[in-house]
């Protein structure tokens, strides 16, 4: 197994796609050099010949499922290679069982969790028995539990030695122990080093870290410093809290609540990490407290106002929101317009300063389209637009997805230094390391309930809520342990 590592924009994905023959065939650009799979030159070979040997798994679980039902999707790749029907009937259930999806043959892909979707996609890629399996950041959208299940399957494929695995992955703690060889790329896409994991760590560990590459030691051993922010001291009456929710409940479909009876109080300036597996209701809770959804039952009070009922102009002063996919938050044609959008002169000056501090000066970035920025740049722009008005509450939904070490540090730095003292921060994240770095308080959700909250004593969980928490904690799914323990 070859592990490919590199900072954002180092061409890891392009390399992965070139192995699958998708670059340069499907992606325009200039191609030089040679890439061979067996005796096949992927840039000139027939697509069918490359596809017969190479399978590739992409990052986004949802967008690579082609057919509606699980078994049809696994069969899709086999049909395209003209497998005879009896062979398909034998292979499809076998592939599904191998990734732990036995019994879900007729399930619709859209009804599966993110982790299940990604394993379904893996089953579809594996089913035709490719000799090379390419995985392009397969766990970027998964929670720690989902990532570990996927890696269990990878470990078994590797042990069988039937396929060569090429893995592009940020999650160093899971990926490095499996790798036979590591290829490190620098920011410009040139190889920094290649060798066994032990060699690479010994020879060029520091160079890799400096280039923004995660190393296994980042997550194991080294103690992550707790948030540097001063501990929040509960002052004044609770009515001064930035956020108060009371028996908050929400359901998208009648009878299937995704947020249940949430009582949460956050003081001005408090930094709170919201953790829990995919589908536990974190994103929905964030949208409720930011006034983007209206609760089915219960109430939200953001600085004394109901955020779902205030006018947009007022809401923007109360809350800033960094969406999981920053691209969905962009509203203008250029970065410069995006930054100034809806701001008065003073706030615009502040926003432009923030852009400078994040290494994206408007002189250089102002005329570009927000959609053309890299993922990390989009995230930073999104944070600036959320912070420009110094809102009472800053909400971030999985801000570290797919971020390399430098992007991660930049984000942590913003939250530590740039967020004004009075602004409360609520960040939903799977990244325990990030949670420990930026937050003083950790609130854990499972199945719509808050099941743990290490906030100041009874402030956020009265005796009634505590009892309920204990009762529901027992049947809740396995809670995500920290990467350090994994």
């Amino acid at each position, binding site marked *: 197994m070859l592990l490919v590592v590199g900072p954002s924009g180092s061409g890891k994905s392009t390399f992965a796609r070139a192995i699958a023959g998708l670059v340069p065939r499907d992606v325009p650009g200039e191609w030089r050099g040679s890439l061979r799979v067996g005796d096949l030159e992927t840039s000139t070979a027939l697509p069918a010949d490359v596809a017969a040997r190479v399978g590739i798994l992409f990052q986004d679980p949802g967008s690579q499922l082609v057919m509606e039902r699980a078994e049809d999707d696994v069969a899709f790749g086999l049909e395209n290679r003209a497998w005879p029907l009896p062979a398909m009937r034998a292979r499809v259930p076998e592939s599904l069982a191998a990734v732990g999806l036995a019994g879900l043959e007729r399930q619709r892909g859209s009804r599966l969790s993110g982790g299940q979707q990604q394993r379904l996609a893996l089953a579809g890629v594996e089913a035709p028995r490719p000799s090379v399996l390419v995985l392009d950041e397969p766990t970027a959208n998964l929670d720690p539990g989902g990532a570990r299940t996927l890696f269990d399957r990878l470990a078994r494929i590797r042990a069988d030695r039937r396929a060569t695995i090429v893995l592009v992955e940020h999650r160093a703690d899971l990926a490095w122990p499996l790798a036979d060889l590591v290829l490190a790329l620098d920011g410009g896409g040139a190889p920094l080093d290649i060798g066994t994991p032990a060699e690479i760590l010994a020879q060029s560990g520091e160079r890799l870290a400096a280039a923004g590459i995660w190393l296994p030691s980042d997550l194991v051993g080294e103690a992550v410093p707790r948030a540097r922010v001063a501990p929040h001291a509960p002052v004044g009456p609770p009515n001064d809290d930035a956020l108060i929710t009371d028996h908050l409940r929400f359901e998208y479909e009648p009878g299937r609540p995704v947020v249940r009876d949430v009582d949460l109080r956050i003081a001005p300036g408090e930094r709170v990490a919201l953790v829990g597996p995919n589908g536990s209701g974190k994103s929905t809770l964030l949208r409720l407290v930011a006034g*983007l959804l209206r609760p089915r039952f219960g109430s939200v009070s953001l600085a004394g106002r109901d955020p779902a009922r205030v006018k947009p102009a007022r809401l923007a002063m109360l809350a800033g929101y960094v969406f999981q996919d920053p691209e969905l938050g962009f509203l203008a044609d250029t970065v410069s317009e995006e930054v100034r959008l809806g701001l008065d002169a003073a706030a615009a000056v502040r926003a432009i300063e923030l852009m400078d501090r994040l290494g994206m000066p408007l002189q250089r970035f102002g005329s570009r389209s927000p959609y053309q920025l890299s993922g990390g740049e989009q995230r930073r722009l999104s944070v600036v637009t959320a912070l420009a008005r110094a809102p009472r509450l800053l909400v971030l939904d999985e801000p570290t997805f797919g971020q390399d070490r430098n992007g991660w540090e930049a984000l942590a730095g913003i939250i530590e230094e740039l967020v004004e003292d009075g602004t409360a921060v609520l960040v939903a994240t799977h990244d325990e390391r990030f949670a420990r770095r930026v937050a003083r308080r950790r609130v854990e959700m499972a199945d719509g309930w808050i099941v743990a909250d290490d906030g100041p004593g009874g402030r956020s969980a009265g005796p009634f809520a505590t009892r309920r928490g204990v009762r529901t904690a027992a049947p809740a799914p396995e809670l995500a342990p920290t990467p350090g323990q994994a």
Partner: protein
Amino acid sequence: MLIPPDIGAGQEASVLGRTSPLVKLGLALAWLIGLATTLHVLPPVLLAIAALVAGLSLGQVPPRSLGGALAPLVVAAASIAIANLLFSGSNTDPTATQLARLGPFRITREAADVALALGARVLAIVSVGVVFAQTTDPTRLVDALVQQARLPARFAYGALAAYQAVPRLGEDLTTLRQARRIRGLGGAWHPRLLVGLLVRAIRHADQLALAMDARAFDSGPRSTYRPITWGWRDVAIGLGGLALLVAALSR
């Protein structure tokens, strides 16, 4: 309407569910053409009832799903009829028989006849469409189009995959609208949303095309995992449907 209805296992295993979608499609088309030849009220009403009864019995469609899908369309049919009743040209014709007078509106017998016939026809079309949608799995429709109607697989399965992505675009639109609100901008239906949606659609399409290509889509001869063959059911449903059409038109 853009979101594919979930077909339950019962509907899939029913007689109509196992009839070739092509037969149902052909029959729907025949009924449509047949209805265009008549201006009477009775034939479309009979056909609408026939379609709904067939859906409930032969199609095993749960009455709730049928009602849910039908309700908004029945409202549409009714509003077409009412608009025609009120604004028909014959209402201003002094020689036409006056039925009633509602404030500024004079309603004539001629206008009422046309409105009723139109409403009944829309009702029939809508009933046939809903029963078709409620007994036809989209995947099976495309399988039949490729295997029985020899439609090119590239086009058919490409369209099917794009169709599966529609709900994702709906979610994107929701988030885009929420993003406007949190940035202090009004206009839940601002035209600017289209730009964001277009970017997302292109991204999804790109990703899907890559995934399909990487899995050897359209790279040569293809086999099929869900073979569809003609059977007695197709003949029976096809002939029965045509007989109903003839019977209804001869009324």
